């Protein structure tokens, strides 16, 4: 390393002589360079002016990361920065920039000495150099980073006077300006800059703005007119309350949260299959509408399952971190992609709540912020101890409809005897019957029951004879490589936790006092398993599938080790997926095996007859191997043995077979019912009604699940390791859960409880300085287009300093004081005069504050993709207000989804689903809805705190020609024509619907000319009126419909139609 602080050569000492001159010049240049920020006499503020220079320019090599620290020098701590270096010099000598090696080096013209070294391609500007020198001259004081200190509720500026404004403020501002505390913070800063706030926006503009912001939809012409005409003093406040109470509010604000949650309806990666997690999306909408306090909102999403008496909703809320992608390619290592999902969860948690770029510490200690490599994995450990089930909502908590299905199934069972076919009468009996007249209902029923009884008797005789006396054997010992197996009271074994592509279950059965002839393996459904089981398969194959590659039966020695294998003479099963039968599980080939795919969610069994009986007193070691090319192990199963020979799988459940084995007299009512239903299930005579029952049962398994988090059982905690360079294949030492050391720690007592819950509570506790600030800042950005901290995702050293630090802290403390009510914060913002300013930009303001950092005018921002679509749907009276449920597929151009794996078709929804709010649009990750993508909506691949706002030709083409917008223009034509009989009144209607305002005379003239011109061309047949009019417009002839469709299309394409101003 050439650029070493250690190797300070003689040249440098000489340099000091020249340096003084250079330094003097620098000081001379200061006033001009920094005049805008601070008077020259004031030393730079460390937090505001200095730290960002140090962190941006120096920390990479002289910061928190010991692994990449050069010369043992670090500038992130004062004691280290001012200490004497091995060279004998000090990088910083407080009060003496001329003797500080740092200043010498940053000003050096020697490419071997200058800092930062040229190879880093990082350069200090002259004003940055001057700031550092002045800071050292003033004593080089360090202050803790503002964002890492708890927000203190600041004094609101100018509240000395009883009317809320200081005399000076009053004098310099519009007399009635300033309705709440926000305005006083904003005004104080504006006055410092010699600026005044803008005038209030006109009522139409304000009405549109607050509608778009609060509910994501524009006002209808009637709503617009009502507001403008409302003479009440508090007309605006009333409107705000109405909008805050609208169900549309939740749909608008949930969408923003879903950007952070990286919500989508498919799994991502290659197969990108559909997943069921829309219940989480609906939960967010409800939470927003109910104004669930943000602290509760947080805790439920990160740890709702751990709350005492957690509700179904609390568990669904944990879908937040299940929105990570799932790779379903067969060839993957599932645990590798789970690790990658955890990496995403840590980064997302950091961005969403802490506003920290924690993800940077995955591979090494953070270059800039005080987050160590180990801190990263400690944070991961707080979230890591989970299983990730496709949670089937427990039957008891399902909807009425599902309960009714259950009743319907029972009803069908009871009706089965009446479905039994009446046997055709014998020829001679026919004559007898004819002689006796028409047969009575009684006699038909009697014949029916006789026939059924005869069938049952024959079946019962045979099955009773063949029934095997199975003895369920609870294992003495279980060992697995990954899956957690628990033995339950009924002897069944339930699996949870991880599965791999090469799973081995080793199960020891205690010795029997009888000779054993066969082993039975029951595979059983369970609600805790994917798709209801019996397998643990959750990707690539069917949910709940399994493939038993091999089953090996061994005689075990006293110590449990295998001594000799038991040959299997015959393997049978109650059901198999094609060639994947029980025999394939004893053929020595690992690529073949037994699966019950095709009858998942139902119990089945395989029997394995031993070639030679196992002598009494020998424990058995059973090895179950799962070697499919994707993880596909058994989730719930039970082992039984028998001392009877010739055991075959007859397809009965264990209970059915046990009942069949009993003498008829010994059978209980339950036994008899069980046997009867089993008989019906096998009887060809009632195959149709049985099929109906099966379909209803299958329906119960589907459509009632959501992806959730579930804490792992206490006896199977997940170990979290630090991973060298962040790589999955390089796990190092185990780490325990903790928050980064520079932040207040989790309270000790809660560590006894589940750390994930403790962490969720800590995030929203007063101890954490970040969450309230980050959350308040995000709300501010939503309204003004720019955060008070413009780097929404970075409140660390590298982040942008707040434009209004006191206002941010006041908003953060106010949010907490308001009980974390986001709606209250929104109310406060939109009721401020700051928010209600007109948005027009004067050339002066453009020159002074192009980005509107100071908020000397109202916001003017392009609308989000969903708001654009929803607004235009509403303008055309097409928007459906139907809420919730699985995603829908609105119209989009052909071919958008065909390019991705599987060439999936996009089957456009019909009826009102075609025009639902965009939050309900089916979100396919690999081929997102074209229009929203074009307008910068995310595809749910990673947490997105702030969307890009682009302005492209493809957006223009979309608004002009996308069939969805053409359809909207056609519908707009219909409602426009209906609104009046002359062009002027129709144009007024059109502009009110699309732009929420009245046009001025010039605009009216331009549009009216266009209308006349197109009408003439249409009437002359130069344009195809029928094609352009479409089918929506019915109340006028094709020429008129097409004329207004073209006018609507033009207005929909005006800048204002897609802008909030």
């Amino acid at each position, binding site marked *: 390393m050439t650029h070493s602080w250690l190797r300070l050569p003689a040249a440098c000492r000489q340099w000091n002589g020249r340096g003084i001159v250079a330094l003097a010049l620098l000081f001379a240049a200061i006033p001009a360079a920094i005049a805008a920020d601070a008077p020259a006499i004031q030393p730079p503020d460390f937090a505001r002016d200095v730290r960002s220079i140090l962190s941006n320019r120096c920390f990479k090599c002289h910061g928190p990361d010991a692994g990449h620290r050069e010369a043992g020098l670090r500038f992130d701590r004062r004691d280290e920065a001012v200490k004497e270096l091995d060279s004998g010099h000090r990088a910083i000598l407080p009060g003496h920039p001329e003797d500080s090696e740092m200043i010498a080096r940053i000003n050096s013209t020697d490419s071997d000495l200058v800092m930062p070294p040229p190879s880093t391609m990082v350069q200090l500007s002259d004003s940055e150099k001057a700031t550092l020198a002045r800071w050292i001259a003033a004593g080089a004081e360090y202050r803790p980073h503002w964002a890492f200190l708890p927000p203190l509720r600041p004094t609101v500026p100018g509240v000395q006077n009883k009317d809320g404004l200081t005399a000076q403020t009053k004098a310099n501002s519009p007399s009635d300006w300033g309705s709440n505390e926000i305005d006083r913070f904003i005004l104080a800063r504006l006055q410092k800059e010699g600026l005044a706030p803008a005038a209030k926006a006109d009522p139409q503009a304000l009405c549109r703005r607050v509608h778009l912001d609060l509910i994501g939809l524009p006002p209808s012409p009637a709503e617009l007119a009502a507001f403008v005409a409302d003479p009440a003093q508090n007309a605006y406040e009333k409107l705000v309350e109405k909008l805050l109470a609208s169900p549309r509010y939740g749909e608008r604000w949930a969408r923003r949260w879903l950007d952070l949650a990286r919500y989508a309806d498919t799994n991502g990666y290659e197969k990108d299959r559909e997943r069921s997690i829309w219940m989480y999306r609906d939960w967010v909408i409800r939470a927003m509408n109910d104004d669930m306090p943000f602290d509760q909102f947080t805790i439920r999403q990160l740890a709702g399952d751990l709350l005492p008496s957690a509700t179904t909703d609390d568990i669904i809320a944990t879908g937040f971190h299940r929105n990570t992608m799932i790779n379903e390619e067969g060839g993957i290592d599932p645990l590798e992609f789970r690790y990658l999902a955890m990496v995403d969860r840590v980064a997302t948690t950091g961005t969403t709540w802490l506003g920290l770029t924690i993800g*940077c510490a995955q591979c090494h200690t953070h270059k800039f912020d005080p987050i160590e490599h180990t801190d990263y994995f400690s944070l991961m450990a707080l979230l890591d101890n989970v299983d990730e089930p496709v949670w089937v909502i427990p039957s008891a908590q399902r909807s009425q409809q599902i309960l009714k299905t259950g009743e319907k199934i029972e009803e069908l069972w009871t009706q089965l005897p009446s479905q039994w076919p009446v046997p055709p009468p014998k020829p001679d009996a026919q004559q007898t019957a004819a002689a006796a007249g028409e047969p009575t209902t009684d006699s038909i029923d009697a014949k029916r029951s006789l026939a059924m009884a005869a069938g049952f008797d024959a079946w019962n005789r045979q099955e009773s004879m063949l029934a095997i006396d199975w003895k369920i054997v609870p294992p003495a010992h279980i060992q697995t490589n990954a899956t957690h197996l628990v033995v339950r009271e009924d002897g069944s074994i339930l699996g949870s936790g991880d599965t791999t592509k090469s799973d081995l279950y080793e199960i020891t059965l205690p010795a029997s006092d009888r000779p054993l002839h066969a082993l039975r393996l029951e595979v059983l459904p369970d609600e805790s398993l994917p798709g209801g089981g019996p397998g643990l398969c959750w990707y690539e194959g069917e949910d709940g599938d399994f493939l038993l590659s091999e089953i090996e039966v061994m005689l075990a020695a006293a110590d449990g080790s295998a001594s000799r294998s038991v040959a299997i003479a015959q393997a049978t099963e109650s059901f198999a997926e094609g060639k994947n039968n029980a025999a394939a599980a004893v053929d020595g080939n690992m690529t073949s095996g037994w699966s019950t795919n095709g009858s998942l969610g139902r119990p089945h069994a395989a029997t394995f007859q031993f070639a030679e009986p196992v002598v009494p007193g020998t424990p058995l070691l059973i090895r179950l191997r799962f070697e499919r090319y994707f993880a596909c192990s058994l989730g719930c199963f039970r082992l039984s043995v028998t001392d009877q020979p010739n055991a075959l799988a007859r397809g009965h459940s264990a209970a059915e077979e046990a009942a069949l084995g009993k003498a008829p007299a010994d059978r209980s009512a339950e036994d008899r019912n069980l046997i009867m239903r089993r008989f019906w299930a096998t009887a060809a005579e009632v195959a149709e009604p049985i099929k109906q029952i099966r379909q209803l049962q299958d329906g119960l398994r589907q459509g009632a699940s959501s992806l959730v988090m579930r804490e792992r059982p206490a006896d199977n905690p997940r170990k979290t390791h630090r991973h060298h360079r962040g790589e999955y294949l390089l796990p190092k030492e185990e780490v325990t859960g903790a928050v980064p050391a520079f932040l207040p720690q989790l309270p000790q007592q809660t560590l006894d409880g589940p750390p994930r819950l403790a962490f969720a509570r800590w995030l929203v506790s007063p101890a954490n300085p970040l969450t309230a600030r980050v959350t308040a800042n995000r709300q501010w950005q939503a309204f003004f287009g720019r955060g008070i901290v413009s780097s929404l995702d970075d409140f660390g050293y590298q982040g942008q300093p707040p434009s209004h630090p006191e206002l941010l802290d006041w908003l953060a403390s106010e949010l907490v004081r308001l009980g974390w009510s986001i709606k209250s914060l929104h109310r406060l913002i939109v009721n401020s005069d700051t928010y209600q300013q007109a948005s027009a930009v004067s050339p002066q303001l453009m020159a002074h504050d192009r980005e509107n950092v100071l908020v000397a005018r109202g916001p003017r921002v392009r609308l989000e993709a969903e708001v654009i679509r929803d607004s235009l749907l509403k303008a055309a009276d097409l928007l459906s207000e139907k809420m919730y449920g699985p995603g829908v597929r609105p119209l989009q151009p052909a071919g958008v989804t065909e390019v*991705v794996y599987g060439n999936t078709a996009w089957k456009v929804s019909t009826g009102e689903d075609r025009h639902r709010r965009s939050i309900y649009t089916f979100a396919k990750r690999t081929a997102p809805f074209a229009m929203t993508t074009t307008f910068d909506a995310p595809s749910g691949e990673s947490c997105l705190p702030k969307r890009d706002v682009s302005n492209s030709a493809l957006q223009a083409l979309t608004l002009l020609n996308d069939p969805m917008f053409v359809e909207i223009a056609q519908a707009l034509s219909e409602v426009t024509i209906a609104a009046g009989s002359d062009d002027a009144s129709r144009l007024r209607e059109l502009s009110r619907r699309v732009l929420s305002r009245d046009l001025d005379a010039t605009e009216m003239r331009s549009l009216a000319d*266009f209308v006349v011109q197109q009408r003439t061309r249409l009437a002359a047949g130069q344009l195809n009126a029928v094609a352009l009019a479409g089918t929506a417009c019915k109340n006028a002839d094709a020429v008129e419909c097409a004329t207004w469709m073209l006018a609507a299309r033009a207005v929909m394409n005006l800048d204002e139609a897609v802008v909030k101003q």
Partner: protein
Amino acid sequence: MHKHFSLLDVTRRHFFSDCGIGVGKMALASLLTGSMGNQAKAGQAEGPASPLAPRLPHHAATAKAVIQLFMAGAPSQLELFDYKPKLTEIEGKPIPPEVIGGQRYAFIRPDAAVLGPRYRFSRHGNCGAEISEMLPYLAKVVDDITLVKTCHTDQFNHAPAQIFMNCGFAQPGRPSIGSWVTYGLGSESDQLPAFVVMSTGNGISGGTANWSSGFLPSLHAGTRFRNAGEAILNVLSPQGADMRLTDDTLGLINSLNRQRLSVAGDPEIATRIASYEMAHRLQTSAPELMNLADESPETLSLYGCKPEEASFARACLIARRLVERGVRFVTIYHEGWDAHSDVSGNVKNNCQKTDQASAALVADLKRRGLLDSTLVVWGGEFGRTPMVESNIARGISKGRDHHPNAFTMWLAGGGVQRGLTYGATDELGFNIVENQVHVHDLQATILHCLGLDHKRLTFRSAGRDFRLTDVHGHVVKGILL
């Protein structure tokens, strides 16, 4: 002068002569002189500089454009480029465990038996490159290409590996190479998107993440050209409209937007006006681009292209036309090389669809003097195993599994050597023995040819500077001119 400039003139002439005088015409005429680079003329306030304004490279470029022929699904190098007679010799036996090491596999077990090459190889051209009989057309242009036999990747499943090849990172969400390039260099065309994507095979495993702009401004995302209907989504006006209506409508929209600009003062309105101008140009230039009527029958037959039929050949020809018009980065996906079963049939089928046109593209670019400034890159996301994949239960036999350790790609033009075979694998084709080229090295090299230093092409996101090559990558100097 470059061809696309003269074409632009033709387009202008067309506009001025064919578009009659009417309301909005003058406005439209003036639109044509505007570009994303100097859109400020449109309004009183200065528009922000376009993210797509042309920018200078870091160093002198040897390529102005890249055409990436992405053979998705991963072609078998052992049937096409990397001849290993040893595999025939030991066919049916497992590979020694010490060669396999800890390599993870997607579907097969490490003790799977070796499968010998299914096709014959012979030497071609002055350079004597060894090429399979399945690539008769490529064999004729071997003196113009560089074969890199020693590519390797970190990923052994399709979606992550394709995304890794394009984005330098295995999970969706980061910018793709085409996005990085337009971010670094801007666009040379004000008529067409700077980064174009076509697909002629099956659905693509990595999906749209392969041409995503990731955290870069979304303008840098690849624009997909469809095979059927209009190439660019929504470029066609609604049914029943004509050119004059489009002119009238855009004239009205822009005049009202200009008026609004004078009231609201927001420079974003100026950008919006420029966007509609660009949209209008696209509506003319896209159909002109896709109209192959001006291609000679000889050229069409060189590619094996039937103009009315969507095919890889047609896409290659369109790629050439795109590059002629100043488009920076073109990717053609041909997904379908995933030969888990019957590798010989798979290779034969895909070569029939792609070999002629791939070679024709090189030859055509060369004779038009475009090969010197256009880098063509051919290859998949990984290679295929020397071991056979067979699975009775799945009805699979004589296939090959995914192999990340070594695979072959070829490059042509744009500053890479001609007639070179670079790197070598061991006698089993399992591991690299000299000159390995990691995916990040390949990416660094492509950027280098375009005049971009992969270490300097960075974007700050989520607290740090990201680059295409993460913290890795070396320019493969050995293949450069």
